[in-house]
């Protein structure tokens, strides 16, 4: 790991200031960033830890939304997001217990790993990503593998999740990494159904609009039975071919609908 200056501000304003240096990098729980630094795939001049900022932590119900601070760990979400059980269950299956005690929702969404779990929840819920500068709709936020609408130095301060009537997340875990080989999050709202798929596409998390349309009129596993996701543009690697991933999307969507509560 290359050397860097370590800074740990106590407020969002101080963190934003420290991140103004173009070679500075924000540090959430570090469960992805620290391994990346060890491999020398990143060499920031300064690492700005967000872990000392109390304002970034916590889970709260605000009206019909669940607001989760950007620095909230997966373990806390799993424990405290009771009003949104599908989201709590998703958080409780990220990585392993020690990783969940450290990794944060803001860090996961800022990194936007194409196989991460939270992007599927945020996109399927139609969540709002709140930063120090603005609010970004999930539909505009995810812009491909490891790419988001965040500007350099911009910090995710919170994520607001509208709470669906019914929802469920089904993950087919890659057994070594415990990331999703394919993961499907289904959320049913009064005005329609949203289906988001992670792990599968070379363009990162995406909405499966054909399934959304089929489920809009008939929210049952039968409604998606004949639907096939297109293997074009799906990830192919030693863990699974594009066709296999496309097949899993259909299977997991039907399971998520059947299990939605």
């Amino acid at each position, binding site marked *: 790991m290359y050397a860097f200056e*370590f800074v*740990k501000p106590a407020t969002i304003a101080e963190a934003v200031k420290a991140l103004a240096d173009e070679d500075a990098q924000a540090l959430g729980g570090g469960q992805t960033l620290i*391994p990346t630094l*060890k491999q020398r795939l990143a060499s920031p001049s300064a690492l700005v830890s967000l872990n000392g900022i109390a304002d970034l932590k916590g889970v709260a119900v605000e009206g019909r939304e669940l607001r989760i601070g950007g620095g909230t760990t997966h373990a806390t979400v799993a424990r405290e997001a009771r009003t949104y059980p599908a989201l709590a269950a998703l958080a409780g299956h990220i990585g392993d*217990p020690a990783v969940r005690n*450290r990794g944060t929702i803001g860090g996961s969404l800022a990194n936007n790993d194409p196989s991460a779990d939270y992007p599927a929840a945020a996109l399927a819920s139609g969540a709002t990503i709140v930063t120090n500068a603005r609010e970004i709709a999930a539909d505009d936020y995810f812009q491909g593998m490891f790419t988001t609408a965040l500007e350099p130095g911009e910090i995710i301060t919170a994520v607001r999740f509208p709470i669906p009537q019914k929802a469920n997340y089904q993950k087919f875990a890659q057994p070594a990494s415990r990331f999703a080989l394919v993961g499907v999050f289904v959320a049913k709202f009064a005005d329609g159904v949203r289906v988001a798929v992670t792990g599968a596409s070379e363009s990162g998390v995406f909405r499966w609009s054909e399934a959304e349309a089929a489920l809009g009129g008939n929210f049952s596993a039968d409604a998606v039975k004949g639907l096939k996701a297109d293997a074009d543009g799906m990830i192919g690697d030693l863990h699974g071919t594009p066709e296999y991933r496309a097949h899993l999307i259909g299977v997991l969507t039907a399971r998520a609908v059947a299990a939605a509560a």
Partner: protein
Amino acid sequence: MPKVSLKVNGRAVSRDVEGRTLLVELLRDGLGLTGTHVGCDTSQCGACVVHVDGVALKSCTVFASDIDGAEVRTIEGMANPDGSLGVIQAAFQDNHGLQCGFCTPGMVMSAAALLTENPNPSEAEIRAYLEGNICRCTGYHNIVKSIQAAAAQMSARPVAAE
């Protein structure tokens, strides 16, 4: 270099560290607490699990500077004050919960975290909780047995010592 102050196994310690110094490096190289192991160094194997403010973390994937002021407990802090093995450690010995022993410190620390959260876990819950602890001898069966034995002993006593 910035100074980091911690309470490690009840003892206050202070050390100058680089920003990039990992908690496990401070424990092993700075404080000589070599019971905490580095297995994979990529946060997969769990040999480096310690407790920070009561929560199990992988000490190879946390910067020492980031937990300034915290209370840390390592495998060395799991023994009884007289130096004899603590309940979980003794259960691992009694149930042959270790073969080569390399993963054992992390297994014991994860087991202690599990039993704090869930004093009477099922076998499935134990196996699920150990998802991030890898035993290269594949000795999981006796590790699970050890944790079940420790849970039974601890719940039989009025005060949980671990």
